[in-house]
């Protein structure tokens, strides 16, 4: 069994900075990588790429629809465009553009979305998109990736340039623990079992992965052995890893900074419902919009904190 102490905090950083570093590094390696931004270069941490490759950086202004279709057009001729704006403006604002010009047309565009979820914080519900994973995973041809920390966001940013096809990459604003080693293996579509356990499976993505690790520590104090899976790729979903784990533990908690409707939990439930019906509890936002507040306050108020994962695990264990 992997000891939870393996997950020492290597530092603290925002995942969007992982995107910024990854973009710069893949930009150096692959000259076909180009970047577009809708007036949020600083927020998306795209400034270094812009400074080093000004001829491959396109400031489109506050015009996200134009940006998405420009990116689609840029693939005709071999470029690999990375678009950067907030998650809300990367999805719901431009859903039809993505649907027709990127997903249906199967263009090699990488939609990179920062400030996802409640942890955008004080800006409030207008900007706190909690439906984006659902929207994007419903699109045929779309790959959906939600990395968990700075290092993994950097890895994911570089990995998506190497695969052909549209990708939605979701990351966030707040500074959060770094616990994935920079040289850790990262494969799109392959879940990471971070902690092995036998009583309950916790499947999380994004900022909730660290919360799941904390929850596993807490549960172990109570004699409960939790397996923690980092499901960084929501689509294509690593069904095999889910089934293997739940076959062993017999129950599952899913945890995400997203609506329960349409999120990671729904995807997991679909796999289990078809192949291995098992008790499941959901940690996520329950059919409500967010509001202004600090990230920590919001995670507490809306029930997506460590304690919620712990409680969900205890609850689901009783349903076994």
């Amino acid at each position, binding site marked *: 069994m992997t000891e939870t102490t393996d997950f020492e905090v290597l530092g603290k950083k925002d995942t969007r900075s992982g995107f910024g570093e990854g973009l710069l590094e893949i930009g150096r390696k692959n000259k076909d990588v*180009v970047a577009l931004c809708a007036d949020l270069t600083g927020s998306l941490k795209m400034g270094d790429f812009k400074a080093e490759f000004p*001829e*491959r950086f*396109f400031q*489109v*202004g506050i*015009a996200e*629809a*134009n*940006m*998405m*279709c*420009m*990116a*689609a*057009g*840029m*693939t*005709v*001729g*071999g*470029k690999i*465009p990375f678009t950067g704006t907030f998650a809300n403006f990367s999805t719901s604002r431009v859903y*039809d*553009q993505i*649907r*027709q*010009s990127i997903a*249906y*047309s*199967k*263009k090699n565009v990488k939609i990179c979305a920062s400030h996802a979820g409640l942890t955008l914080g004080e800006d409030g519900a207008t900007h706190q998109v909690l439906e984006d994973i659902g929207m994007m995973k419903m699109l045929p041809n779309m790959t959906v990736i939600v990395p968990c920390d700075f290092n993994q966001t950097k890895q994911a940013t570089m990995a998506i340039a190497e695969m052909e096809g549209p990708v939605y990459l979701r990351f966030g604003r707040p500074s959060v623990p770094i616990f994935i080693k920079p040289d850790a293996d990262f494969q799109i579509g392959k879940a990471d079992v971070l902690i092995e356990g036998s009583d309950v499976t916790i499947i999380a993505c994004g900022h909730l992965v660290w919360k799941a690790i904390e929850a596993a520590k807490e549960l172990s104090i109570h004699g409960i052995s939790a397996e923690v899976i980092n499901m960084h790729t929501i689509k294509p979903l690593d069904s095999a890893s889910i089934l293997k784990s739940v076959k062993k533990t017999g129950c599952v908690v899913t945890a995400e900074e997203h609506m329960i409707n349409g999120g990671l939990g729904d995807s997991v439930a679909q796999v289990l419902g078809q192949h291995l019906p098992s008790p499941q509890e959901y940690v996520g936002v329950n059919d409500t919009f967010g509001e202004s507040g600090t990230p920590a306050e919001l995670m507490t108020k809306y029930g997506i904190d460590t304690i919620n994962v712990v409680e969900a695990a205890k609850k689901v264990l009783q349903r076994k």
Partner: protein
Amino acid sequence: MDNQELSSIATQVRRDIVRMVAAVSSGHPGGSLGCADFLTLLYFEVMKNDSSNFQMDGKNEDVFYLSNGHISPVLYSVLARSGHFPVAELATFRKLSSRLQGHPATDKKIPGVRMASGSLGQGLSCGIGTALTKKMNGDDSLVYTLHGDGELQEGQIWEAAIYAAGNGVDNLIATIDYNGRQIDGDLEDVLPLGNLSQKWQAFGWEVLEMDGHNMEEMRSTLAKAKSYVGNGKPIVIIMKTEMGQGVDYMMGTHKWHGAAPNDEQLASALGQLEETLGDY
């Protein structure tokens, strides 16, 4: 190619259009007929493209995007007649498993289509993207886009217009099918566009105008448009057309925007359009 030859091809294209939509009792004949002359000229004379060896990346050849995807019948006919795929395939239009979807799509890999379209307002942005890629690649071939006039009611068009002018996207020639009609009626009644020419000029574009049914005028206007390439400004041609051109009862009304003729109406239409190249 001389004008008569081009007009003769365009007449066959018009026959194809009405036969295609009549066969499945659906589709958009009005705008298709209106753009038959323009697209014939574009594909048979103006554009540099290899119809026998379609490449999605469009490198070193001119790229065309049909932003008003509902006039797919004219695009399909012109693509087939110019050798992109067998004309017999036009008989599959809008039928199950056909490569000729109701609106153009790439997923079944029909040669000549590089982007899905139908949801309006997106093609200008796509064209800008490809034009920028051509610049980055040192590829001096051009990007052409076609838009409906009603389509200009979509806000994204104007986002794209601002971008292209602000960034000197001068290897792009957009054309507006200015027929003044849309599904619900005359454009002036649905939502007037005001002075289109002045609008585009105010947005910083090089603006040309032409009669979309006069081959000679279109040829010289397109040549003029090409001469502006590299001048730092995007180029738009406002092309005056008649919706339903070539079929008398389809002209002068918006009613054939998205309606197919019945057997009797088809016979009447075909009676007005000579079979110049042989029906598919």
